């Protein structure tokens, strides 16, 4: 049996997408689940102002949490770099994007760059590699496909929502968990020429032909593909129909072999 790996999970102060109230980010709880499945020694890391809900992560199977106290207007990057420098984690897990802050998903990449770690995005499962200090990562791709990667540790891995569901919240586990509070590094964010206002949903693009047409035509455009007017075979013998269908599916490229 190998030594249990040292894993750090980055936790962010999330907000619920509907109610807007503070709550843990689901994909970060899934990251805790992935780390637990590795049998790792886990530490949660959060840099930010005091918050009630950060400790809720303890209820989802995390034993220890380090809270780096910084101000509302401070950038968490510097504090996290310093903390991870002392933690000596073989693996850093993070969600892909936050939920309720800047939501640009840039922090894991900036952190990895500063620490010289490689980034592996969108993990849906983790396993120990065949050699020491390697990790097998199953990466979730669109359309349910996966990619198996072997990565040399240390590395930073972001977690995909397709990972196994997190452990349900347990109040006893939350009480049992340890929160260590430390002072973070104050580093005010640089000013950016960004104007902020209340969110306005933007219309999604729909078919161009719909503009100014009748309601029936708009419905048609919304339910019809751009490439209309296909081939129609009327009452072919079943064998011929089957041959035509298979040839067509092969042309499109959905049928292998």
């Amino acid at each position, binding site marked *: 049996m190998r030594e249990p790996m040292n894993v750090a999970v980055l936790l962010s102060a999330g907000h619920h997408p509907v109610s807007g109230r503070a709550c843990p980010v689901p994909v970060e709880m899934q990251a805790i689940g992935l780390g637990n499945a590795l049998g790792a020694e886990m530490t949660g890391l959060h840099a930010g102002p005091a918050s009630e809900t950060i400790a809720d992560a303890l209820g989802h199977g995390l034993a220890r949490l380090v809270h780096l106290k910084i101000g509302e207007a401070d950038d968490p990057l510097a504090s996290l770099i310093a903390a991870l420098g002392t933690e000596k984690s073989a693996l850093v897990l993070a969600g892909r994007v936050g939920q309720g802050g800047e939501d640009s998903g840039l922090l894991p990449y900036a952190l990895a760059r500063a620490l010289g770690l490689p980034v592996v995005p969108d993990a849906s499962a983790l396993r120990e590699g065949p050699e020491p200090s390697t990790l097998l990562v199953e990466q979730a791709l669109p359309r349910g496909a996966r990619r198996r990667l072997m990565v040399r540790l240390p590395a930073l891995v972001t977690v995909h929502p397709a990972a196994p569901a997190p452990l349900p919240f347990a109040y006893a586990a939350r009480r049992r968990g340890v929160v260590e509070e430390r002072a973070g590094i104050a580093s005010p964010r640089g000013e950016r020429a960004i104007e902020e206002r209340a969110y306005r949903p*933007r219309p999604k693009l729909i078919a161009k032909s719909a503009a100014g047409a009748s309601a029936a035509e708009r419905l048609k455009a919304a339910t019809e593909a751009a490439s209309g007017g296909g081939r129609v075979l009327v009452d072919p013998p079943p064998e011929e129909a089957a041959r035509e269908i298979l040839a067509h599916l092969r042309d499109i490229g959905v049928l292998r072999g």
Partner: protein
Amino acid sequence: MSRLRRDPRSERSRHRVEGAARPRFDLAAAPSGLHGRARRDPRAEFRLAQVPGTARLRLDRTQRVAALDLAPAARAPEPQAGPRLVAIPEPAFLVAAVPDAPGGRLTPHDRQLLGAARLLADAGGGAVLVLAGAPADELARAGADRVLALPVTGYDPEARAMALQAVLAGLDIRHVLLPESPEGGDLARRLAALTGEPLFAGAESLTARAVTRPAAGRRTEQRMVPPRLLTLAADAAAAHAGTLHEALEVAFAFPPLPPGAILSADDVPADPSRVPLAEADFVVSAGNGITDFASFHDLVEALHATPGASRVVCDAGLMPRAAQVGASGTVLEARCYFALGIAGAPQHLQGVARCEHVVAVNTDLHAAMIERAGLAVVADAQKVMPALLSLLAEKAADAETHDAGAGESEAEAVDA
């Protein structure tokens, strides 16, 4: 046939004198060509809307055929010239677009990305530089002026980011656009971390003067002039259309790229039976016209597809509710949809709206699904399914005897 219908309005408008501010008519002069609106002939429309070959009167009110027939005959046919080629020999600057282009083909999101890049480039006399390999004519139609493929093979995003960084340093690039897709979003963030530039992630609207993105869980909207590095959300910008662009190859000397920390990467194709319907690539779906569900399930397995169903079938308990396709079920993202015995109600078609290819088998020639399909077969699904199955079994047996030599390829043939 009755006598030709007179149209006094158009007869009068044929005498109209050109160029006057007020309408003037010179009834003595010889009539000029056709003018004005074509007169509607409701009887002819009715006649054209009749669907032939049915005992009962059946009208096709969509009037596709009728609209064509009623168009004024005198209008000269538009010259069918191909799209105009636009060349930008001396661009003021470059706008780089980095499409995902999986397998060397542009996705709809990639096309929208190129459309957005065109918009930024055209605002200031710039040119669009596409940093990916794809067929030249496809890129020309999508609006690419210059093309430069990145020298990275296999899955190595860090090397791609470094190659991009080299291009950014070497050429005069004002904006870099990437799609906010799993791969493009990852690359954009790597590039932002490498260059230390701020990233404007997931732009939802874009003009030459302002871009916006949602932040704080879609509670606030951030807005600024387009920065250098930005990613574009899906369906946020229109794809380029109308003109052709040159898609000229550009030469660029890339520096040597160091190997990354990823030791190996294998693609694992999705297991279609486990993939959620919303993510599936190929869906075979049963409707009320299917009675032989054993054959249907065999067919789904033989085609390596994900099973779906219409609401009627799910309501009847013949398929699980999770398999329902449509407005109150799942909206598909599939590349191909194979509908067996489905009429194609609007609620159902909404679920299929984003599918690129549709194949339909239905006994009713006038079903909406037949109209929607790229290949439609008017036949009994209960007879077509066994024929498909036996043909597929034949092919599989063929492939097996063909590859009997090598043990490994035989296993693949059984898989495929």
